[in-house]
């Protein structure tokens, strides 16, 4: 029984190893390495778009249900072929470039945005031994690469020569740079506890204890997770932080002037970013691919799926932030909280379990209360509405 489970668990790893072994018999070693890289690359290149396509379907279905309607259900059973229909539509659409646009940069931006989105996939541990490149500085790589996304968005917005796009681009720059900081700082506790920057090592640090060793089950872990998740939502420009697009204000923000496949690439990058960020969040705080019975990659995808569902749930519920509130939220609320969180993590390592729990909750409570008191704009005013005859 356990043998079968283990086999299913390692099926992808085994398959790749088998192919490489086979080739190793009659090919020189350097070609085998090249083939290994190619296999991983092709898998990721296929996985990215497929994930994106079905995430759009999932989003439309879930939001449909939230809004008491069916969502797409005409193309194929349960609308399963809808993404393909959308893809065909995107391909056949006319590609429009504004007359005054900077044509080269306008073309480059959608291409450039997909690259970092795909690059992050390299360090995501999809399962036991299924990290494409087991970098020992995996998290650093992730943080570095994910911040590149700003540049293509700004390129696209600037090159469009549209004022809505320009505003959207400016907002993107401000928003993504600001949210990068609390996000990075929210990751630090996980690094401190696992004492490694490699994503796989962080997952392994959360092993055992029937899942209770996951970082989310500690006070600093839950705070870190929530902050990381909020920042991730902001990083991939999803509601309620979708200011760069801001449909009701800026028409479509930075991609107002994009159509057809170029637009689809922006869209693809957004969804792939959402997936990888959720995957990293699951890795850092939810024990990654760890879990009983089921194969490890299924656990990873399950956890990621739930996080994505929460992102979609956000989208179905919340109105958008305003630009200054957004910045204030990052700098005045999330940033101090992450710093306190790092302090707590440090204390956690030196104290006994019970004292650490009580102490952390006390410190967190006080700091939250203080932060709310300091940020009066976040607190709704109480209003009184007289009813007069």
């Amino acid at each position, binding site marked *: 029984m356990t043998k079968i489970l283990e086999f299913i668990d390692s099926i992808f790893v085994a398959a790749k190893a088998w192919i490489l072994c086979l080739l190793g018999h009659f090919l020189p070693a350097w070609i085998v390495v090249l083939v290994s890289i190619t296999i991983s690359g092709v898998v990721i290149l296929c996985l990215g778009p497929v994930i994106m396509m079905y995430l759009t379907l999932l989003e439309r279905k879930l939001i449909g249900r939230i809004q008491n309607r069916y969502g797409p259900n005409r193309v194929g059973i349960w609308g399963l072929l809808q993404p393909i229909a959308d893809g065909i539509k995107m391909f056949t659409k006319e590609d429009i470039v504004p007359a005054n646009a900077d044509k080269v940069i306008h073309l480059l931006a959608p291409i450039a945005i997909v690259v970092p989105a795909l690059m992050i996939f390299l360090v995501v541990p999809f399962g036991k031994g299924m990290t494409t490149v087991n970098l020992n500085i995996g998290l650093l790589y992730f943080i570095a690469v994910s911040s590149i996304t700003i540049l293509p968005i700004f390129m696209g917005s600037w090159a469009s020569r549209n*004022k809505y796009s320009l505003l959207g681009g400016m907002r993107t720059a401000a928003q993504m740079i600001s949210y990068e900081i609390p996000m990075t700082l929210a990751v630090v506790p996980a690094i401190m506890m696992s004492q490694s920057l490699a994503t796989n090592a962080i997952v392994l640090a959360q092993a055992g204890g029937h899942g209770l060793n996951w970082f989310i089950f500690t006070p600093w872990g839950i705070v870190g997770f929530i902050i990381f998740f909020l920042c991730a939502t902001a990083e991939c420009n999803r509601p*309620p932080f*979708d200011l760069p697009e801001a449909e009701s204000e800026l028409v479509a923000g930075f991609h107002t002037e994009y159509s057809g496949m170029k637009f689809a690439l922006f869209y693809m990058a957004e969804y792939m970013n959402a997936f990888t960020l959720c995957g990293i969040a699951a890795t850092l705080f939810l024990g990654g691919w760890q879990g009983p019975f089921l194969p490890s990659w299924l656990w990873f995808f399950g956890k990621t799926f739930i996080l994505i569902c929460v992102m979609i749930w956000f989208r*179905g*519920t919340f*109105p958008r932030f305003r630009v200054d509130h957004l910045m204030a939220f990052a700098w005045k609320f999330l940033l101090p909280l992450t710093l306190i969180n790092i302090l707590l993590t440090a204390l956690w390592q030196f104290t006994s379990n019970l004292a650490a729990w009580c102490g952390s909750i006390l410190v967190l409570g006080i700091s939250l209360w203080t932060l709310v008191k300091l940020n009066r704009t976040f607190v*709704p005013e109480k209003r009184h*509405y007289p009813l*007069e005859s």
Partner: protein
Amino acid sequence: METTEVLKNTDATQILEINFGPQHPSTHGVFRMTVQLDGEKICGLKPVFGYLHRNHEQIAENLPYAAIMPYTDRLDYVNALANNFGYALTIEKLAGFEVPERAEYIRVIMAELARIVNHITVIGFMLNDLGAFFTPLLYAFRERERILDLFEEITGSRLMNNYFRFGGVKRDLTNENLAAIQKIVSKFPAFLKEFEALLTKNEILCMRCQNIGILSGETATNAGITGPVLRASGVNYDIRKVDGYSIYNRFDFKIPLGEKGDVYDRFYVRVLEIRESLKILEQALTKIPQGEIINKKSLPLLKMPRNFKPPVGEAYGRVESPKGELGFYVVSDGTPQPWRYHVRAPSLINLTVLEEMCLGQKIADAIIILGSIDIVLGETDR
């Protein structure tokens, strides 16, 4: 989009001039505002009208009185019944028609249902302007749909009702209709509770709406602002109470007033007004008498509308439409068609203070301020 950058100061920042509309997702139709931006801050805003202008008044001046009724539906197409009400009231004033008791009750019931439809739609669209991805709007539309189905059953059409006649209404309410209305009225508070749980305490919504677009009571009065926008600024002025037209003075209802006159107050005053409308409906449904639905004197006019020639004179009739004071000014010269027909459109006049409310706010705020004023371009541009 026009690309004219105006230099305000040679050494300082550039002012960015943007046209919001006429094709823009949240200008509620083909409304345009020319906005001057300093970064994200608004330093100038000019509304531009007329993209939906069809000279309603001239069309009406070439038509017999009864034939104008379906055209009034097209003014404010979200609640056509209020327009019908205003026009019918004006012509009854001009011709001196009495309205039977039952017809008055039917009118009030229909007008209040239309008010609920309007307010709930406005709240939904305002939330959409705020960036909520259609969820509040579709919840609102779900409830609106029930009322519109009822309108279809009673008036024959969902939006373009053409239901009121001079001296009465077109069709009687059956007992089943009354039961259906009663069902809607009794189910509505539960929906409102859910709707409020979704919205009113939401921190993001409060952050976005509170202290934004403040309009003081004095400015509002002087600028002729009416309706929920005025009452949100704390001025107690509801034409249903002031004029007591039709039979509104027989019902017990209150007027909710706002505290600060910001976007949040306008939003919440509308929610409270829905509650008051439900109160009126409850009372009207219990009190509605049996009897005629149209004045006997005006019955023959239904068959020969062209024979209707009101005496020479003029009348100014106004009703509390959900958008504000909807006035009709009609001058009769004794011929079958009016000599002068004028509509005092609340959506248009409420936009007088748009610039003042938006100055110094962010672009995102301008959108929700516009949404909170509640305009329908059919009425604004006429």
